[in-house]
């Protein structure tokens, strides 16, 4: 008689592993950004840092924040060799302005190129707390379209290469830009 009680208690103790699942964990892979890496055109295997690059979405007034801790305009400026930019989850293309040497006193150095990314997207279930995420596939035929700014100062991007058309994670480079 006591045995059955013991068994039931033993089974009850196996009901463990309660995890809090109301908050979406920041480490969970959710909607990825497009990862762009910059390389040296004269030495294509060597990453090259951009100089004061500002990236603004078409139709937006503020640029993408690259440095959360910086103040004012410096937040939107990067001097690294890799950037991550969010794509629209409810459209099939996203256009960005890439402004090199932003706010340079020597206005001749400032160069703006526009890049439109064409893609398809699908919504993937993640979890109760995170909901869904959107992943993207760059269109194989015309993954991007490069155009110059209204000033017609020429292109600073010399060669663009799609490394991975499937944009699912942020830990890899999807597009390489040589300059």
């Amino acid at each position, binding site marked *: 008689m006591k045995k059955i009680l013991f068994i*039931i208690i033993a089974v009850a103790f196996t009901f463990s*592993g309660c995890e809090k*699942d*109301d908050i*979406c964990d920041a480490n969970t892979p959710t909607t990825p950004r497009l990862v762009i890496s910059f390389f040296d055109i004269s030495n294509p295997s060597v990453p090259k840092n951009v100089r004061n690059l500002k990236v603004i979405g078409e139709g937006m007034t503020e640029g993408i924040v690259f440095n959360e801790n910086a103040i004012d305009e410096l937040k939107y400026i990067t001097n690294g060799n890799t950037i991550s930019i969010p794509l629209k989850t409810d459209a099939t293309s996203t256009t960005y302005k890439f402004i090199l040497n932003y706010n340079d006193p020597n206005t001749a150095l400032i160069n703006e190129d526009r890049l439109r990314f064409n893609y398809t997207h699908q919504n993937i279930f993640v979890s109760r*707390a995170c909901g869904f*995420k959107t992943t993207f596939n760059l269109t194989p035929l015309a993954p991007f379209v490069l155009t110059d700014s209204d000033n017609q100062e020429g292109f600073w991007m010399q060669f663009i290469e799609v490394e991975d058309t499937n944009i699912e994670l942020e830990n890899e480079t999807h597009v390489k830009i040589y300059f």
Partner: protein
Amino acid sequence: MSKYIFSFCFMLSLFLVQAQETQATKKATITNKTETEPAKAPKKATTAEVKKDSIPVKTDRYGVRFGVDLYKLTRGFYDKDYKGIEIVGDYRLSKKYYLAAEIGTEDKTTDDDRLNSTAKGSYIKAGFDYNLYQNWLDMENIISVGMRYGFSTFSQQLNTYKIYNANPYWGEVPPVVSGEKFSGLSASWLEVNAAVKAKVFNNIFIGFGVQLKTLISNKKPDNFDNLYIPGFNRTYNGNFGIGFNYTVSYFIPIYKKKVIIPVEIKK
């Protein structure tokens, strides 16, 4: 809202336990008055003579008990996102063991921060209860522990969902209206259950029970999850689940059995 209902039912269940205890002590004092010695001791000594005694032989009633889960039944009145019913039943196998089963159907809309989905389906649970409570005289109260195997077939409809975007540069996208339906889903689980059933009058019992559950199988839809399983309730990250019920049931006696007081074997 459900939090208050839960605590209310829990409070009621406490009264049930309380009621039993006072009854028990009353009867205990009566027996102590009629017999100067503790009740159990003389009975054991005179086992052989019990049949000849003029005092009527103590009998246990055996039969089936049918009832309904009041919590599920009444929840539909105040919660527009819920409709459900659960029929409970048990059959007394022996002095302490009861075969027990629950059958029910649920239609529940779960509204999470990022997801809104509706689960619809039926379930059956079967197993046993073991009565831990030592009844005095003709009392028939039950404080039981038991186990169940549960099985549910259901469908899920994803109503709306939100896209999680840690970098909402392009602004928050409004919830996506889906309406996609996933049918032919099923799940099975094992549960451990603790319950109290008290005879309130004649053959009417009021009961309260809590269940801890663990999923054995769970057929999930493609690109979605079973957020609510009828009978199992809300799912968590692991296999864990909880449940409770508040029942009113009617006992139908079928036959009576004499209580045989076991003769102690000398060691």
